[in-house]
């Protein structure tokens, strides 16, 4: 069981996440963050890494939460599991959320558990009506237990499963609408899947309604040559590539500034490298904000 936070002054009250770049928090960077208190707008964690009773992980996360807004990005609720939701796990995330008051909780349009077996990967869903009904029920259950709505992220995938009755974009948008959830739009994932399956990334992104997008993710991926052509592997192990920056820019121009996370999970680099990626993201966001402001002023003046 989780204990109450030691510093009850930390009544965070859902400190909102600004529509700027945030960074995925890695224990390897705790030292840098405490030493330099870098200018980062917000951090995101995987709640699965903080479900222990006590110890250093809570100690350090509490200190970070004292200075920065926080978001929970779950990798383990397995929203698409045909064997249903692991309610115990969702309750643990709820307790953790009560302790740290994240501004958002999200998970993926995928599954990772078959009954008692956890596969620890984000596996693709077939985009069928059967899967849609099941996922809607699962998302409802999760949101009921958590007592709040979640954001659902589009996955990167290597299978384009046959028998689909709608495409991924429709599936995601309809699922969010039906569940009262929002969308976590991972621009890198759209690009990776589009390249792997021959979809059009621009078309996918343009069909996501702006009002549903609460957060955006950016990451690097690797390209592996195979005898069947290139495959893009979403390893979160490098800088955001130029094609993804360009799609991000288009997306920001269309939907406006959003909280945007830089993810880097394999071969985690020095903290400065992540800060630089966040700065680039903020430059794109600021350009869009300036445009929006100027447009707004222009409209005001012309009235």
């Amino acid at each position, binding site marked *: 069981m989780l*204990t109450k936070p*030691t510093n009850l002054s930390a009544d965070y009250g859902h400190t909102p996440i600004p529509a700027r770049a945030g960074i995925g928090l890695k224990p390897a960077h705790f030292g840098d963050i405490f030493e330099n208190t870098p200018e980062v707008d917000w951090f995101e964690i995987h709640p*699965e*890494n903080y*479900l*222990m*009773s*006590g*110890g*250093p*992980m*809570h*100690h350090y996360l509490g200190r970070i939460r004292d200075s920065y807004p926080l978001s929970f990005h779950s*990798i*383990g*609720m*397995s929203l698409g*599991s*045909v*064997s249903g939701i*692991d309610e115990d*796990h969702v309750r*643990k995330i709820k307790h953790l959320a009560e302790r740290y008051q994240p501004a958002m909780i999200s998970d993926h349009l995928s*599954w*990772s*558990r*078959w009954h*008692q*077996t*956890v*596969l*620890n*990967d984000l*596996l693709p869903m*077939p985009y*069928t009506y*059967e*899967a849609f009904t*099941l996922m809607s029920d699962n998302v409802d259950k999760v949101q009921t237990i958590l007592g709040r709505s979640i954001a659902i992220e589009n996955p990167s995938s*290597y*299978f*384009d*499963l*046959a*028998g689909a009755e709608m495409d991924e974009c429709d599936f995601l948008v309809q699922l969010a609408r039906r569940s009262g959830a929002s969308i976590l739009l991972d621009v890198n994932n759209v690009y990776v899947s589009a390249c792997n*399956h021959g979809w059009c990334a621009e078309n996918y992104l343009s069909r996501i309604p702006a009002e549903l997008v609460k957060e955006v993710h950016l990451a690097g991926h690797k390209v592996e040559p*195979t*005898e*069947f052509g290139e*495959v893009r*592997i979403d390893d979160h192990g490098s800088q955001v590539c130029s094609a993804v920056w360009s799609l991000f820019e288009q997306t920001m121009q269309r939907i406006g500034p959003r909280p945007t996370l830089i993810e880097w999970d394999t071969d985690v680099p020095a903290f400065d490298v992540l800060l630089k990626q966040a700065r680039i993201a903020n430059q794109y966001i600021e350009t869009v904000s300036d445009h929006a402001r100027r447009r707004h002023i222009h409209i005001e003046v012309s009235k």
Partner: protein
Amino acid sequence: MKLNHYQQNLSALLLVAEIPELHKLMDVLVMPPGTSANPSEHTLQRLGIYRNNVLYSLSQAMAAQFPIVKKLVGDNFFFALARDYIREQPPHEPSLTFYGDTFPAFIAEHEHCQVLPYLPDVATLEWQCQKTLHAADAPVLTTEQLSTIDPSQLGELTLSLQPGATLMCSDWPIDRIWRENLGEEANTIDLNVEKNAGLLIYRRQWQATVVCLIPSAYCMLARLNDGHSISKSWEQAQATYTLADDELGALLVYLVGLDVFSGFTLTNTEGN
């Protein structure tokens, strides 16, 4: 294809070791458009990415949990061992913090690990470190707090250990093996000379700490941990080891100085 069928079969495909079995199961997996009814190399290759993701992510979690075991057997052997373990005992919880609890027993049974008889105990030590590192937080009992007790009542105290603190005995000098391998250059440990170890594993200042106790101190702490009072525990330590009466004070100061106790209870009276 029904969702149930798809998820059941993909789960099996991700964890199965044998390629012939893969082919046998592949015909139930939905083919991407444009491929024939038989498992195509293209689909197998994409499936390989998922198989690799599952094994890689779980093996990395195991490597983080058991770094000294990995160092002792080498990367190649460790990852082969981890792969066998993952396929036989995949995790049941999405949080991997405590994945690998049965790995020490798995090593003890594994035919290729028999040449390193101390390996299961080293794995247990690493597992206990992980457990104690993430155990609940508790205050640390200080000698100042103890000094508030009337000396005549001291013997009637029972002391509680930090949550997750463990006492562990091994026939091997595993603390030396563990410590030497934490450093970059391991010295040779002569297993014919180095003796068995009685260890205390607990968290101190946010770090897992391993203390090798002399036998009398181990005995005393084990009794205290069983819930016996100080005088009762001391009696049992004296019955086993040759200890002068006046050694109790020094032993208590030593144990309390380790910051391993979280509080005390006076028999019949609650205290802390």
